[in-house]
């Protein structure tokens, strides 16, 4: 009799995180669809203004008579693109700084950690507005704010992971062999903190989406006519009483995106960083 299923703990993600992953992939698909105008031209005027959902405009029309469906699709794309670009930047920077601080320690560690703490002490949205004020509103401001908001936590966690890895005997053995810093960091430390980076990257993505939403909502982020979830919610807010569908569509998508990413992050965390890893071997 084969008892694989029961004795073996699952290597894969649990159903909930799989659902999160599925939802996220669906959103990516939607975003890709908007590139080929799968839901229609987001800038074309298709009917009367402020119409509730109906044939021809499945999510209603906005104050100019544009169909909301392609606009939400485009918004998802913009938001996902901006936040993932920002998260990639964050991941690269945090990995670099966190690993360096964690492995080298000393004044370099102090310096990096003080800067990180300073950033950490600013409320996220204040920081974002500050960036927008300096860089001028737009996509760049959105990306930069997301990076600044997500970098402190990620750097701290990567550093903590790197500190633990740096004490491991295989790192010591490599150092005794005379391995240089690039080899030690690249071959030994980075691969062993990669799990942390992946997990935190997922969480950062959800933070990024909400920061983009907030910033564009306040008018400091993506600028119309380009659609992003934040922009759409801002525009919908104006007609909240008369045409609630304008805010419901993008709002639901935003919540869905953040939720599914967080669920996925939890699953990845359990998978990569189980608290209790014990085996006799």
């Amino acid at each position: 009799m084969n008892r694989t299923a029961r004795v073996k703990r699952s290597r894969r993600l649990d159903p909930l995180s799989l659902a999160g992953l599925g939802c996220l992939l669906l959103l990516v698909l939607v975003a890709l669809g908007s590139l080929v105008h799968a839901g229609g031209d987001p800038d074309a005027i298709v009917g009367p203004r402020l119409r509730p959902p109906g044939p021809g405009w499945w999510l209603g029309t906005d104050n100019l008579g544009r169909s909301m469906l392609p606009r939400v699709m485009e918004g998802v794309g913009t938001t996902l693109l901006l936040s993932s670009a920002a998260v990639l930047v964050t991941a690269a920077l945090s990995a670099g700084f966190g690993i360096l601080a964690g492995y080298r320690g000393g004044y370099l560690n102090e310096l990096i950690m003080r800067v990180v703490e300073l950033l950490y002490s600013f409320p996220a949205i204040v920081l974002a507005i500050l960036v927008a004020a300096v860089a001028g509103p737009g996509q760049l401001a959105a990306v930069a704010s997301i990076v600044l908001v997500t970098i402190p936590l990620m750097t701290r966690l990567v550093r903590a992971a790197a500190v633990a890895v740096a004490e491991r005997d295989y790192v010591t053995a490599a150092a005794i062999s005379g391995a240089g810093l690039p080899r030690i960091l690249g071959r030994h430390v980075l691969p062993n903190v990669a799990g942390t980076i992946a997990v935190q990257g997922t969480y950062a993505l959800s933070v990024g989406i909400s920061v983009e939403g907030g910033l564009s909502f306040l008018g400091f982020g993506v600028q119309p006519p380009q659609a992003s979830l934040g922009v759409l919610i801002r525009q919908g807010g104006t007609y909240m009483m008369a045409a609630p569908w304008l805010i419901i569509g993008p709002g639901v998508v935003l919540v869905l995106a953040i939720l599914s990413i967080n669920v996925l992050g939890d699953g990845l965390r359990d998978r990569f960083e189980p608290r209790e890893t014990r085996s006799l071997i």
Partner: protein
Amino acid sequence: MSALLEVDGLEVDYGTARALDGADLRVAAGEAVGVVGESGSGKSTLGAAIGRLLPRQAVVAAGTVRVAGEPVLDLPPAALRRLRRQRLGFVFQDPIASLDPTMRVGAQLRLVLRAHGRDGRESPGGRDGGRGGADVAFHLARVKLDDPRVAAAYPHQLSGGMAQRVAIALAMAASPELLVADEPTASLDSQVREEVLNVVFALARQAGTSIVWLSHDLPAVARRCDRVAVMYAGRVVESGPAADVLGDPVHPYTAALARSAPAVAVPGVRLEPVPGRPPVLTGPSPGCAFAPRCPFAEDRCATERPEPVRVGAKDVLCHRAAELEVIA
């Protein structure tokens, strides 16, 4: 005596590699059994299977494990946790990896003590801090760690042997019915080792704890345990009363194991290892796994799987057990 632990025909695969190839082990209540075998023979895998603590790549291909009659491999998660908590205690092969690096030793010990009130039942409420502190010191002193510094130290601040003793103290503090100890004294010097083993075995005797002691050191195990099981390539090739297995080995592998040890070497004389190398199994061994290294092997040894043969008080897994008994 009723058996507290029964392992029957256990086969465990790691992907394509076979670690256990039909292992049998029986431990009575209150009995101490030493499991010896060379590096890679499957001792740790056997120990892990007792608590269903196998890593996730492991596949149990066949066999059963029963602890106090409960089928460990088929228990639902809640029952499994209860079984582990109430009956089983583990000392892992690499102690420092089994300690929580972020918690002081004293705190870890207190956690265990709190989960297992004195009388062995659970009392999650916990006890007052003062007595907890005294208890911690008491449990550490039992494994010869009487320096108060130890309770306040993090695991990485301990020496290898100290960490090993902390792991023993943690396992003993839970007063298990069955203690599975994987090389618990590998990094202890002889003096401390004897003292710690004295304590562990004395406590076990008092409390009626059974011990499964996994080790590579046959003489050391035979000195302490009631019975010894010798493993080779995932099977128990010889088991029986400790004195018989060490003093009067029947299986050729046991005999080779009992012979040479650096400790008995005459200075200047070169020691010879058992010739050959243990096999790396990828499936059931077709015959006797020791045959390629065995000076007594005959044709059928390579093709027929040996079944246990009763020789005196021992069970021996060898086609020629009866003849070899005469030679020995």
